[in-house]
Structure formats: structure tokens, C-alpha cells
């Protein structure tokens, strides 16, 4: 049986890659994918701990996260499409309307 720590290390690596990509990448779609990566890293830890403690609640959390992620993907992609239609770009550095 694979020790739980392995899953956690993998999850941490995935999460860090997600954070790094989120900070570095300029394309909205890529940023969006990196968010998914972070979410799934967290899912992995949930499942790993659920398995470790023989508790089903961790698994249920994962379903919740997936549902929310799916909803988020729908809303996020819609936003991305409407941004592209108006701005003709997906570079986040050019999308800074909230600057004070």
C-alpha cells in the first residue's frame, strides 16, 4: 500500500505548480487551467486523508468541490468569451479596468 505522504507530496507539488502557473501565465485560459490544477491538488489531499482515516466525508467534499468547479468553469468560460469579444485579447495584463 502506498503511504499517504506520497499522495500529499504529489498534491503539494501539483498545488505549487498551479500557484506558479497562476502567477506567471498571462493567458486567461491558462490561468483558468492552473486554478483547476490547484483544486484537483486539494481534491487529492481530501481523498488521501479520507482513505487514511477511513472516513467517507472527505470523499463527499471532493464531490462538492467538483460540482463547484464545474459551475465555476461554466461561468468563467462565459466571462472569458465575453471579455474576448469586447477586448479582442485574453492577456490579463491588458485587462486592468479595476486600477484605481
Amino acid at each position, binding site marked *: 500500500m502506498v503511504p499517504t505522504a506520497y499522495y500529499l507530496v504529489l498534491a503539494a507539488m501539483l498545488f505549487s505548480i498551479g500557484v506558479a502557473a497562476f502567477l506567471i501565465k498571462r493567458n486567461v485560459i491558462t490561468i483558468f487551467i492552473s486554478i483547476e490544477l490547484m483544486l484537483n491538488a486539494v481534491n487529492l489531499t481530501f481523498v488521501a486523508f479520507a482513505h487514511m482515516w477511513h472516513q467517507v466525508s472527505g470523499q463527499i467534499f471532493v464531490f462538492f468541490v467538483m460540482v463547484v468547479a464545474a459551475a465555476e468553469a461554466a461561468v468563467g468560460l462565459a466571462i472569458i468569451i465575453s471579455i474576448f469579444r469586447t477586448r479582442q485579447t485574453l492577456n490579463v495584463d491588458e485587462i486592468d479596468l479595476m*486600477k484605481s
Partner: protein
Amino acid sequence: MNAMPATYLWYIPLLPFAGFLINGTLGRKLPRAAVSVVALLFTALPAGIVAWLWATMLAPGAPNSMSIASYPWIQITGFTVNFAFAVDHLTLIMLGVVTGVGFLIHIYSVGYMAHEEGYWRFFAYLNLFMFFMLVLVLADSFLLLFVGWEGVGLVSYLLIGFYFRKTSAANAGRKAFVFNRIGDFGFLLAMFLLIAHFGSLTFSQVFATIGQHPEWQGAGFLTAIALLLVLGATGKSAQIPLYAWLPDAMEGPTPVSALIHAATMVTAGIYMVARCHALFDRSPVALAVVACIGAATAIFAASIGMVQHDIKRVLAYSTVSQLGYMFLGCGVGAYAAGIFHLLTHAFFKGLLFLAAGSVIHALSNEQDMRNMGGLRTRIPVTFWTMSAGVFAIAGIPPLAGFFSKDEILYQAFASPNPLFKLLWFIGLVTAGMTSFYMFRLWFKTFFGEPRFEESHSADGHTAHGVHESPWIMLFPLVVLAILAAIGGWVGIPAALGGHNQIEHFLDPVFASGASQTTAVATTGHGLELSLTALSVLVALAGFYVAYVCYYKKPGIAAAFATRNQALYGLVKNKYWIDEFNGNFIVTPLLLFTRGFLGVVVDSGVVNGSGATAGASARGLAWLTRKQISGNIRSYAGWLAFGAAAVLAVMIFGRAVWVHL
């Protein structure tokens, strides 16, 4: 008639207040007739209630006082002040003066102000004045009295500055207000001392406590309280050193001068001293100060009044001088005599001001006596009524002023204190001066050749030239003239075969001053009669001098003035008091406020701290604003940084905390 229930006391001041509210809020839209009806109605009703109150209190077997209290106004542990009114015989007299003379002057004002702008404003103020003045005289505690005291000061300010477009009127209003503030400061300090020593501000409690402690005779704190109250009284009643506002107050409309600055408000100081007689009786020093202030003010103001040319200013200085007499009366312990003079003064001085207003009206706003003369036949009703006032104030028997003034002088002379003999002499000289300046006014206004120019009549309003006032103005004059003539008969002394009813009437109030009356009784009537004869002689001498100078041989006075240039200049310029105040008090104060308070405190500290606070807020804002770049990646970076920081605190923070 049924006895008046005590609850009706509330209505006495509240009715004029209702009139003020109506005229003050709706008056601008109401027609003039409606404004007049409201103002007169809400003044007449309290006068009616006061008449009923008189009947109740004078009924056989009626108690000497009546009081009513509301729920507590201020209530903290060990200290309570109620909204409470109390009526005794002193209050009755004041109520009669305020509502009676006040109502007459309201009637007069309807005629006098008929062509003025701001008609509704004027009557709203007058009704407000009645409200505050009635609160002042009805009050059962120092604090409620102070409410009325401040209120009448406010209305006085508003009415002096009634023609506020005129700079001099606005300045005069401010001057009156500032002078009164100085006096109010003393009154406030006196109240603080009273709270500290008695734990109460209610008249009955404070005076009862004083009565229970005979060992407090001349005690230092009583003297301090009394002197501070005197400071308050000098401000309100225009005595030295705070008298200078009253002559300037003549900038207000003439009915205001009559009502507020002659008959009622300025007597509030005398009323207050009389009301606090239990306190003053215990402090011979304070009483002597009151007497000295009164005598000094009387002669000082009378001397200035002798050389004024403005008819209203002569009357103003005369008012200051007569108020000095009342102070003198209170100061020698003859409170009843002081109040008696207050009563007669309200009649004849109110009359004189109203008559002067009628003269001014007749001459289309001419106030300078050098431009009058020969008006005797032109405005006969004004002449005859004003003559009653002039003879009354000059002390010619049997008119009102003779009895009251003589009573004060006699009480001063009969007092055992040798200092008061000197004050009596000053008072006697002042009586002569009073007679002189009043007859000077009389001769210059009504006799001799007319010195006004009828050609003034070209400008429309004065098309009729000199004209008698309408009857709505003359009616109050006639009533007041009758009162000025016979009003003194309530106080005919025993020496002249009278009973001095007013003194006995006030006995329940001034009962502790009984020692005074016994001292008088032992001296017999011979002295009193000779003193009376002396003061009549002095008054006649004043008349004769004025007769020679201003009727028989006009020009003597001018020649005298040119020969004694220095003296005349000194008096003419009012002893340079205004200049003294300006140069030695106002200018240094201004320098201090502008130089120190303005530059150092205001610009430096106040503005400086504001500027510093603003600049630091801007700096902080600049720093945080840098973060709001609109760049999503920078937000994300800060988010990650924050999450990492929280994580770090959660993991390592506890360890660090434990080690600390």
C-alpha cells in the same frame, strides 16, 4: 370671583410663547392686521391671568405665596432642579409691570411700527421677550431665573439689531450681548458657588439654609456669591462698570427702548438683588458695594445725560441713572423702596420713551433736540403726556417719581452707616441733575422757536409735516401718563399722612429687613419732612436752571460750554469710557487673539494638526493605492503571499509566542 388655580401660572409665560411661535413661523405670510391681533391677544391674555392672580392673592385670608412645580428638570444624586414657578408679593408687582406695561407698549407698537419692514418679526420678538421676562420673574430657582435672564438678553440683542442692515445697529446689538455675557459669567460662577455650598439652586431652600445659620453673618463665601450676583446684575441693569451698552441700545426701535431697555429687562438686576435679599442681608460688604455702584452710576450717568443732544440718548442715560437709584435703594437695605422706584420708573420711563417715540414719529425720524423746539402746540397730546413723565421723573410732588425717589434718599440718609450719608448726598445732587436734564429736554423739544425744517416735508412720507400720532399710539401714552401721575400714591410715606402701602405689601417678602423699618420709626417725622422739602427744592432748582438756560436766555448753556471747554469736552465725550474700553480692553484682546490665538494656536496647532493628519492619510493612501493596480496577477500574488503569511503564523506563530 373664584381663586385662581395654581396651574394657571403655566399659562402666563406660555401664552406669549405661543404668540411667538405663531408669528415667528407663519407671520411672514399673515397680513399685518392678523399679526397685530395675535401679538396683542397673546399679551392681553396673560395680563388678564395676572389680574386674576392679583385678585386671588389679595383676597382676605389668601396665602402670601403660591407655587407650582413640574417633574424634575435636572436630577442627579443630591441635587434637583424643577421647572417650578413661585409667586409672592414681589413677583406680583413684577408680573403687573411686565404684563401691564408690556401690553400697553404692544398696543403702541402697532401704530409705531405700522410702516416698518419686518413687522411680523418685530412682534414675534416682542412676544418672545414677554415669555422670557415672565419666566424670569416667575422662576423659583436661580437656574430657571437664569434661563429667563439669558433669554431676555437674546431678545434684547435681536431687537437692538432689528435694523440689522445698519452697521451701527448691528454693532450696538453685539456690544449689548458681549457686555451681558461678562455679567452672565459672574452669575454662572455665583450659581456654581451656590451648588457647592448649598447643594441647591431653589430660592426657598437656599434662603432657608441661610436663615438657619446665624453664624454666617458676613461669611466670606456669602459675600463672594453676592458680589458675583452683583456683577451679573450690573451687566443686565447697566450699572458701572458694565453700563456702556445701554445708551447704544437706543439703536433699536423706540417701543423696544421703552419696554426692554427702560421698563422691564434692565430692572431684572434689581429684581434679582431684591429676590436674593436674604443672601445680601448677610453680607454688609456686598450691600455697601451695591449702594456705592448705584450712587456712582446715578451721578455719572446723569452728568452725561445733561449734555446729550439725541432725545433718546438723554432718556437712556437717565435710565442708567435711575437704575442706579434702585441699586442704591437695595444697597441701603431698603428693598421695598428700590422696588417701588422700579414700579414708578416703569411707568414714567416707559411713558417718556413712548412719548419721545411719538415726537420722533411726528418729526419723521428726527432725534436731535437741536432740530426740535416749539412742538407744544403742534402735538398737544404728546406734550401733555410727556410733561407728566418729565415732572414725575424730576421728582415734583405729587407725581410718582417724587415718592419713590424720596423714599430711597430718605432710607439712605436714615441708615446708620456713615458712608450712606455720603451716598445720600450724591443721590440728592443727582436728583437736581435729573431735574435739570429732563427739563432741558422738555424746553428744547416743546418750547422756543421751531428749529426743524418743514421743507423736509417734500419727501412724500412727511407730506403733512409735523403731525400728531394716531390714537393707537396716544392711548398707551395717556394711560401711562395717568399711572405716572398717580402711581406713586401707593407709597405715600407716613410723614406725609399716607400709609406706604407698597412697603407693607412687600413686608412678607422682605420680612428679614424689618430692622430697617424700626430704625426709621425711631427717627421721627421731622427729619423726613425736612429731607423731603430739601429734595423738592433741589428738583425745583434743576427746573429753574433749565428754565433760564434753555427758555429764558438760550445761549447761556452754549456760552458756559465754551468757557469750560475741558469740562464740557470730558462730559460730552462720556468721560472717554468707550475710548478707554476700546484702547485698553478691546485692542489688547484683539492683539492677543489675532497675534497669539490666531497665529500660534489657530494656524499652528489647530490648522497644523489638521494638515498633518491629512498629509499622513494621503501618504498612507498613496502606499495602499499602489497595490490596486488592476493587474490580476499582482492581486493573485498578494493573495498567495497573504495565504503563505497566514500559514506561517499558524505553523510558527505559536512557537514564537510560547518563547516570548
